[in-house]
């Protein structure tokens, strides 16, 4: 028998929010497990993949975070959220030119929205804090 689980979007939202809360509270293993679970339930969505990237970023593993963001962009090339986070990861990997490209892409895709705003704030940070190279 072929079982298909298709949970409602509201339930996935609750799971993702729990993942974000765990991540921000420092429960990175729990956050990763939740995002992995949501990725299994919604394999076509880029959102849990970006969540996994943010967990790797929080661990200080920027290269791993970048891989997740690139995977997210494979699923949705127009994801402003993924572009903003990829720009952030590039910034911490000291790839300023690449960071600017992705941050500007996020701003273009979501002008005035929360993802474009995040990208704008990161651009400001680039100008204020010395990240090297």
């Amino acid at each position, binding site marked *: 028998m072929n079982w298909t689980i298709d949970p409602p*979007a509201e339930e996935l939202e609750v799971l993702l929010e729990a993942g974000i809360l765990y991540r921000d509270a420092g429960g990175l293993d729990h956050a990763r497990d939740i995002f992995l679970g949501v990725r299994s339930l919604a394999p076509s969505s880029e*959102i849990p993949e970006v969540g996994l990237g943010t967990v790797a970023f929080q661990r200080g593993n920027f290269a791993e975070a970048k891989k997740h963001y690139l995977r997210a962009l494979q699923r949705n090339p127009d994801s402003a959220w993924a572009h903003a986070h990829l720009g952030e990861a590039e910034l911490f990997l000291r790839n300023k030119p690449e960071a600017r490209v992705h941050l500007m892409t996020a701003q273009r895709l979501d002008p005035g929205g929360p993802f474009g705003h995040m990208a704008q*704030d*990161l651009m400001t940070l680039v100008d204020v*804090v010395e*990240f090297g190279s």
Partner: protein
Amino acid sequence: MSVTNALTAAYTPNYSIDQIMQTAQAPKAAGFRRVLGGIVGGVGNIFAPGLGSAIGSMISGGINTNPGLGEAAQYLELQRNMQNESRAFEAASAVLKSRHDASMSAIRNMK
């Protein structure tokens, strides 16, 4: 407390709050800035590893110890560095807030 003692206190991992306060009141606040840079760097790293270090080093490394500069010039330099720190904190704070807002918005758009 002399500047030398203040710096020694700042570099000692087990410094006390009193030492920090005394250091902060020293004529040259280099020691306090080093301590503050370390503390703020640690806090910043909780949210974004690397960011805290960047800001922390900006603070602790910002003091001008060039003996050739006059006192007024040193205070001007100190003021400029403080303004830069303030801008860095504002920028980092804005990023943390917008990151959270973006996360929440992405979740709401989950399909």
